[in-house]
């Protein structure tokens, strides 16, 4: 009896001692990351293992003297190891696997919450809609960081090791490490936003994953085909067509981060691309701001209509 009374008293006088919004958001993000990275997600883990095996094989075959870039033309076009990593398989890149990882990791993140309507419970907590979107962005972003930044940093460390772990080499490449991280962040954030947008729009995990894959990878192939056709026909400003593909748009941004002119590998040939930074910036802003705005609007509409 006394015991029961004590339990009731504690229940009545309960003080939850709640934490602040940033910690709630970070906690939500990390718990979801843990759920995505469970070992039972065989598909995702298989792709991550492939990425790391591929990175190891590239490490074994690489030549440290040409790291990070090799000049291709006299006009300043270069072939760079960290940039090629994000290219297609024929270029020695991981794009196919990265896009597959994005599709699998992001497919159900928001969509499942919307399908089972648990989003209403999340949004009734002390977090805003933007907080919720950030909390759902974090796990996908972290999964992608695992396959973008870390393999490239591993490559960088390996190159340093090949050069005898000399401090002079490290000092000579001191900005490269920051560039590699920035590059990984741009790809991870960009792909994560696209994946989450489809998850929000479609609300069905598998369909959202398929749509993300087609939108990123399929669109890149279609744009390349049109690009080559327009180039062959010698159409002016044909290069802009590439920016209609998210992966090429992100490639362009990352070539800019590397201070290198954009070089596209398509139809087993390297093509020099020359587009204005302002045009690319506008397309980038419109695409990603549009995706974020659309997600926010859809959640808001769902809340208003139950």
């Amino acid at each position, binding site marked *: 009896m006394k015991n029961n009374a004590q*339990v*009731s008293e*504690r*229940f*009545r006088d*309960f*003080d*939850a*001692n*709640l*934490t*602040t*919004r940033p*910690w*709630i958001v970070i*906690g*939500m993000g990390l*718990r979801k990351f843990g759920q995505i990275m469970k070992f039972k997600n065989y598909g995702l883990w298989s792709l991550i293992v492939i990425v790391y095996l591929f990175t190891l094989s590239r490490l074994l075959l690489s030549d440290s003297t040409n790291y990070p870039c090799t000049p291709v033309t006299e006009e300043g076009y270069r072939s760079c190891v960290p940039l090629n990593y994000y290219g297609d398989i024929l270029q020695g890149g991981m794009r196919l696997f990265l896009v597959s990882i994005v599709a699998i990791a992001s497919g159900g993140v928001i969509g*499942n*919450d919307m399908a*089972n*309507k*648990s*989003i*209403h*419970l*999340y*949004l*009734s*907590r*002390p*977090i*805003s809609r933007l*907080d919720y979107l950030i909390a759902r962005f974090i796990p996908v972003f972290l999964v992608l960081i695992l396959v973008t930044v870390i393999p490239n940093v591993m490559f960088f460390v390996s190159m340093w090791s090949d050069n005898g772990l000399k401090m002079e080499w490290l000092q000579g490449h001191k900005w490269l490490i920051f560039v590699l991280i920035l590059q990984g962040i741009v790809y991870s954030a960009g792909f994560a936003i696209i994946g989450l947008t489809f998850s929000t729009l479609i609300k069905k995990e598998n369909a959202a994953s398929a749509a993300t894959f087609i939108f990123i990878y399929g669109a890149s192939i279609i744009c390349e085909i049109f690009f080559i056709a327009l180039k062959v026909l010698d159409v002016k400003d044909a290069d802009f067509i590439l920016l209609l593909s998210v992966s090429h748009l992100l490639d362009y941004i990352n070539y800019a981060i590397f201070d290198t002119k954009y070089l596209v590998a398509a139809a087993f040939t390297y093509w020099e691309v020359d587009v204005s930074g302002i045009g690319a910036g506008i397309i980038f802003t419109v695409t990603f701001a549009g995706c974020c705005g659309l997600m926010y609007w859809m959640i808001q509409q769902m*809340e*208003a209509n*139950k």
Partner: protein
Amino acid sequence: MIKARNVVKQYGNLKALDNFSIDIPEGKVGILGPNGAGKSTFVKIALGLLTATSGEITVLGETLTKNTVDIRKRIGYMPEHDCIPDEMTGVEFLIEMGMVSGMSLSGATERTHEILGHLRMGEEKYRLISEYSGGMRQKIKLAQGLIHGPEVIFLDEPTSGLDPNARREMLETINGLTDVSNTRVLLSTHILQDVEMVCDSVIIVKDGKLQMQEDVKAIVGEKSNFIQIRIGGTKEKFIAELKKKKINAEDNERVLIVPYKDDSTYDEIIDAAIKSEAPIYEMERTSQSMDSVYRETIE
């Protein structure tokens, strides 16, 4: 508890709330109204999930235009529709909801087991929610609203879709849990008996406008002097005879409801029955439920 001043919520041409002003007192308060009356809209505005088109609303002393997110630390919410993820166990789900409210892992775990103990959930709390019955799902939905120890909980149609036994059990659970945790209640429903069983006061809303605000006990007490009659023969004739004696009988399909003045009312009823040749099968003095009060207000 909640103060609303000239609140308007407009969806295109539709006014879900039309110049809605109210002072909702402390305690357990029910919002009654037909479907589309604006009950859920008001609850969502009070929760900060929707923004009012105009007007001002204050919840627990905080103005919602200034602080729509942090106020939810002090409010619990149980939505009407099924919104629990099937792939989690009851315990996992409540811990997650506790942590999304800002609780620590240990705090959320402890509180989860305490609440589930009060809900008398034994080993089934470790089962997947997909295996739960409708009543158990509703209990889990209620528990998630109370997990962070809110000062007030908003319940949106908490008994919808439940059979009579599960409904009674749910209402008893609401009463039990909110009493033991000293939590105030705002219950939005269109089921009158739910309000009678849980609430101290009631608000009736229709077409986004406040129709009535009253103490439940006062309504039921005020309207308790009625005689319920079941007769044979033609009702119309009997009602006409009563009318001659200046007694207005309300035809409730199964029974007739007649206001009780004093014991002479019985004699007048019997006299009317004799004159209209309508045999009386049953006659008893009874208290009236909120049903007719609600219908009178709405109509």
